């Protein structure tokens, strides 16, 4: 329902709240271990559409805490899963949505994340040592939300991120890694949160980012690749953080995102006429939020949370 080119908000809400129980669904198999992130994507989308109250916050908080490992201070992707920084951030973000950071042993969680910083300033994802600039962002974002950023060596963290900067102004997963919009978001976000955006050549990176816009209005993640709705977030938020978002054609991008909706059953897919999933539903709505689409709450581009949630964390008196 609704005219072509409109956001089918009610349908998306329904899609998220009553996720289908298909026993043989591929999505069900591969999402089990990252349900914490799935929850973050789904719940943030609900909040952006003013429907967070559709879920029981006490139940969510209980379940999130059942993913917590008190010995390490980290969260797993689901009950019974090992701690990992990915799901620690998702858990903290979900608790932020419900204003329930009070359930955390903040020092313990902060120590878990801090312990993942390596000597060269990079961050591992968990005890097994995988290194990626994604984890730099995730750690910095988590600690900042918990007001514990001072626990890490911020200068070294920034130094490592800067070492991943490429000749095109973008960033990769590791030094020398190809510039990729997802990694760029992580590096720009981390630099934004740590007050280190001066390391970025905004004009150069802004140009690389606006070159991601394809003829169909969508955004890709690297030169000569196809547009994908998730880049509506990675590219757009990066552009906003460096003050260059006016360099893309927002109207055409919005049209692209809206074309990726399943208006009957709800949900958004990576590109028009493909199968929907929670991940792309979140990124599509988040992208529309960044473009101030009517009916969608504004979002903070660095923390990837609704603006009112972030304001509550940083402007309230309790620290």
């Amino acid at each position, binding site marked *: 329902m609704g005219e072509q080119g409109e956001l089918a908000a009610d349908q998306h809400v329904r899609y998220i709240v009553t996720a289908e*129980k298909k026993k043989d669904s591929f999505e069900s198999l591969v999402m089990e271990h990252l349900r914490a992130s799935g929850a973050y994507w789904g719940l943030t989308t609900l909040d952006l559409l003013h429907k967070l109250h559709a879920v029981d916050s006490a139940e969510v908080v209980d379940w999130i805490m059942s993913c917590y490992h008190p010995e390490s201070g980290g969260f797993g992707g689901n009950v019974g899963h090992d701690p990992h920084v990915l799901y620690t951030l998702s858990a903290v973000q979900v608790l932020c949505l419900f204003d329930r950071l009070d359930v955390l042993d903040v020092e313990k969680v902060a120590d878990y994340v801090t312990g993942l910083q390596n000597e060269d300033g990079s961050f591992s994802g968990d005890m097994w040592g995988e290194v990626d600039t994604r984890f730099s962002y995730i750690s910095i974002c988590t600690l900042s939300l918990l007001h514990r950023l001072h626990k890490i060596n911020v200068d070294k963290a920034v130094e490592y991120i800067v070492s991943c900067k490429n000749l095109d102004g973008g960033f990769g997963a590791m030094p020398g890694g190809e510039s990729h919009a997802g990694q760029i978001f992580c590096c720009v976000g981390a630099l934004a949160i740590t007050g280190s955006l001066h390391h970025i050549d905004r004009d150069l990176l802004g140009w690389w980012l606006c070159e991601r816009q394809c003829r169909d209005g969508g955004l890709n993640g690297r030169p000569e690749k196809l547009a994908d709705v998730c880049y509506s977030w990675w590219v757009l938020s990066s552009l906003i953080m460096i003050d260059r978002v006016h360099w893309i*054609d927002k109207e055409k991008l919005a049209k692209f995102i809206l074309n990726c909706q399943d208006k009957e059953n709800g949900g958004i897919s990576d590109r028009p006429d493909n199968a929907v999933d929670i991940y792309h539903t979140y990124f599509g709505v988040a992208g529309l939020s960044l473009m101030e689409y009517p009916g969608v709450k504004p979002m903070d581009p660095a923390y990837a949370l609704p603006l009112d949630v972030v304001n509550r964390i940083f402007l309230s008196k309790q620290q």
Partner: protein
Amino acid sequence: MSSPDEEEGVDEWVPPSRRPELADVAPLPQGDGPCPVVAIAYRDDFREVMDYFRALYAAGERSPRALRITADAIDFNPGNYTVWHFRRVILEALDADLIQEMNFVDQIAECNAKNYQVWHHKRWLAEKLGPDVANSEHEFTRKILYDDAKNYHAWSHRQWVLQALGGWESELQYCNQLLEEDVFNNSAWNQRYLVVTRSPILGGLVTMRDSEVDYTVEAIIANPQNESPWRYLRGLYKGDNTLLVADDRISDVCLKVLNNDWRCIFALGLLLELLRMGLQPSDELRGTIEAINNSDPEIEHTDLATAVCSILQKCDPLRINYWSWYRTTLSS
């Protein structure tokens, strides 16, 4: 104990509940709670495997049968990082054959080439196995890249192997080959930059710059509507604007391309940058731009750089705001 074998009967998969070796294990179901937040339904056999996995994981059992269960669980969901963790713990406890393990993970990787856990497991193994596996790792990433020459994970792994374990000798040649197959492959251009700047064999960027400019110009002429070589060309002179402007080949390639296709945004963009940096345009270049100007009455007749900017505003309407901004930087 013999080295752990991965699958019992290759012909038919036997569910854990019917394996004699697991007869004494009480499977442990998932604790979802009554009202899961993001409801997920499971296939029955997947459920069974995971129930057995959870039991063995909870018991902390580091045995061949536990290793086999992790293989089953990985088969159902290679993204399950907890299973991979447990598998590594078992491998260490059993002091397992890591070459065999590398073969195992390679099989998984072939069908799950964009999976973080798989690549991290390979790296964990390669770190332990050392420079001896450099060649086989390069062979493997080559195989993956043959199917998808832009696979980010494969490239990350390849770069790590080069820098940690070696094998630089034929890397530039490999880039040549990939670019011959698809000159639009941005990953290959990125790899080229890595090799040119970091290979211990080649001598560094300044040494390689001259031949690289020739190579890139040729690639541009063959396919001007290709973002990557234009950026690469620019990158060869990063931090050295004077040299960029002084190298005639750079302005020449812009001119050559524009004479064939005056709408080529990349050529116009690079030309604009050169002009902004102080390029003194040849008569020929000036003539080409003015011809473009004259063909369209809407384009204003001002200085050359502004003229190029106006052309871009028309040819690249998606980024009209970028070119409008660029114009304001030309005022001096």
